[in-house]
């Protein structure tokens, strides 16, 4: 629909006045965007850089863009494939998408979701339970993941490569990692009094 002109405008707006902690750019095609969200201060994602993929459907803005995380993230509402459970990403009546929203607002919403997970509408049941009943453990795991997948240390590697790497690893590795994460954290917990 109005996709082309609207997207152009949105992109230039995103370029000139990006919301704090958010960058968004075209990935070759107009309807394929990439974004980066900086992990918020005082969240377990602090210092992490999270890459997102934004696919803009043909019917945009009458349909919401499809946004997913490319960087693995330990979060109750984001699954191992990077899919995000967020109302504004869905069409009404279940969702809250409306054409007056835009990519910038969506990314901001995601940023907010990262800072404040919604464990009552979980996508990842176990992480959600952890978040609810063992917040410390959750924070630990989330921090660990952030460091491992979204850490600044990785910045030295070319981005594209990193994305590809992430893509391949998200599905398989993340589930394994999850369990590992739990184990490790338990050990750490035990050993904590020592340190």
């Amino acid at each position, binding site marked *: *629909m*109005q*996709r*082309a*002109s*609207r997207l*152009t*405008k*949105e*992109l*230039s707006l*995103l*370029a*000139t006045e*990006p919301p704090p*902690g958010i*960058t*968004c*750019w*075209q990935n*070759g*095609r*107009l309807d394929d965007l990439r974004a*980066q969200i*900086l992990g918020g201060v005082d969240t377990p994602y602090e210092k992490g*850089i999270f890459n997102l993929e934004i696919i803009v459907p043909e*019917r945009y*803005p*009458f*349909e919401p863009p499809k946004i997913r995380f490319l960087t693995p993230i330990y979060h109750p509402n984001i699954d191992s494939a990077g899919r995000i459970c967020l109302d504004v990403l869905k*069409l*009404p*009546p*279940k969702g*809250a998408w*409306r*054409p*007056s929203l*835009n990519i910038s607002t969506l990314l901001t919403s995601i940023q907010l979701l990262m800072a404040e997970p919604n464990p009552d509408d979980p996508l990842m049941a176990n992480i959600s339970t952890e978040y609810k009943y063992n917040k410390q453990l959750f924070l630990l795991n989330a921090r660990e993941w952030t460091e491992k997948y979204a850490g600044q240390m990785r*910045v*030295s*590697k*070319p*981005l*594209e490569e990193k994305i590809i790497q992430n893509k391949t690893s998200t599905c398989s590795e993340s589930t394994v990692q999850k369990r590992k994460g739990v184990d490790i954290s338990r050990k750490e917990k035990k050993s904590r009094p020592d340190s």
Partner: protein
Amino acid sequence: MLYFTALMKGLFSPFLGTFLLIKMESSDSSDKGSIDQSEAQRQSQLDRLDREEAFYQFVNNLSEEDYRLMRDNNLLGTPGEITEEELLRRLHQVKEGPPQQNSDENRGAESAEDVSNGDSIIDWLNSVRQTGNTTRSGQRGNQSWRAVSRTNPNSGDFRFSLEINVNRNNGNTNPETENEPSVEPSNGEDLENSQSDSEIPRSESPSVRQPGSERSSAEELTAEEASPPRGQRRARSRSPEQRRTRARTDRSRSPINAVSEAPRRSHHNTSSQTLDHSSASEAEGSSRTRQHVTLRQHTVGTEVPSENAVLFSPPETRPAPQAAGSSETSGTSESTAPGQRPPTIVLDLQVRRVRPGEYRQRDSIANRTRSRSQTPNNTVTYESERGGFRRTFSRSERAGVRTYVSTIRIPIRRILNTGLSETTSVAIQTMLRQIMTGFGELSYFMYSDSDADPSGPAPSQNVETSEPQSGGGGASGNENADVSSGEVYEGGHEAGSTSGARREGRNMRGSVTFEESGSLPFLSLAQFFLLNEDDDDQPRGLTKEQIDNLAMRNFGESDALKTCSVCITEYTEGNKLRKLPCSHEYHVHCIDRWLSENSTCPICRRAVLASGNRESVV
């Protein structure tokens, strides 16, 4: 270039330090690799923007009537894709009126015509969504078929009409021999033969096939043409409908012979009974479509006593069906040979994206099938329900004409969430395949039906008989009348009438002793074939009428709010804006599209219509 700078700017945002350089590197290298490609892309995007610009200009310059006309006919296309010239052409076309378009489209279709084997119908149907408007015909054995399909790429609407002729006399190319109404038992057999005899390709007599198929495509077009002023028609259909339907029944009755007359009268009691039920359903506040049916039933009930008078009324009491135009004439010419026609199945299917909220369902597929054969008067209704699929089937027979009404309601919420996309087309294909399978099983069906007849207490089911044909000549006239009314083609109407039928089915259930035998035949020989969205939590859009009722004005420079939040474009002088009750404003074309699928304001999310209001308005 625009995008490129945007990209660069984005990259230099302060907090990404080292990261950015890397990003730049990688993007640079990729750019070098595909420099031509991105150049071409940029060019095409620029072209697109130009076209979009032109589109908005065009829309803004349209008068309100023209805008409505084009929107309602789905001619506006997609900004950025459709060129201004094309828009202009479409506007002229639609203004010049249906006949012009008819012939145009027909000619176009004709050229695409292609004769192939009957077995390929299904293959063809599979590709039909891609190919757009096509006409095909072919034959298998002594069945010949001709199918016309039209796809509207903008709305995803899909129309398909198919006519199948079955020549009962195997290998006999002379239609004259089919003159005398053949005896009933042989009929089923013949069909059986025709089925099994598919090896022998047999040329269908063109005199029979051609007008019919042309008519079906014309019908289609007329129906579509007739759809824009739907609101008026709908409003009208409350009271005048009664008169109209009565006329229709009169008309259909006039050519009837006494044979068909007698049973009808005997059905009187039951039909008035059904009237009660249907008026009950009306009271439920369900769609007006049901009313449509109701009235028709009503007519049956009330008209019967005076039937004699009607019976002998001269043929000219047949009112010329409105808007039928040329299609009518071909229809009547057909009808001059009542018993001569080989069994013909006319199937008209329309897949239409029903505006949510406009009707009770999101999507509907309806088709109409008529098959003719010589069998006793009879109407049977079946209903089955299983696993979310509700099926109704009713059959009526009258003076050699059988009418099948079949309804299937399938919740397809998931499909619809993604819009009318590929999944839907797959669903449609499946439907069509089922229908087609049904045609394959025609013979079986008819055969087994006549077997089953004795056990069915047919007389009670007069319901559908009012619409259905009264035999030979009246039949095709009737068909046309139905078609020309244009109402039957609308999703809601179909839905309504079928839900009416479904009710019927329920009512009849007690009296019909049929077991649910294989439901495929029911499904297959469908007259109405519906895909209904059952779920109430679907987003409900507004009807065109409701949208049109919202305030509209032209933008003036002095206005405070200057940007449409749907397209984030600033308004310019002369832009048409629509103001929602919450006083938020948008470009008409922007908000109309959103409201056709949703019912809340994009800014404040308030319901555009007061709750409860919708039902009564619809």
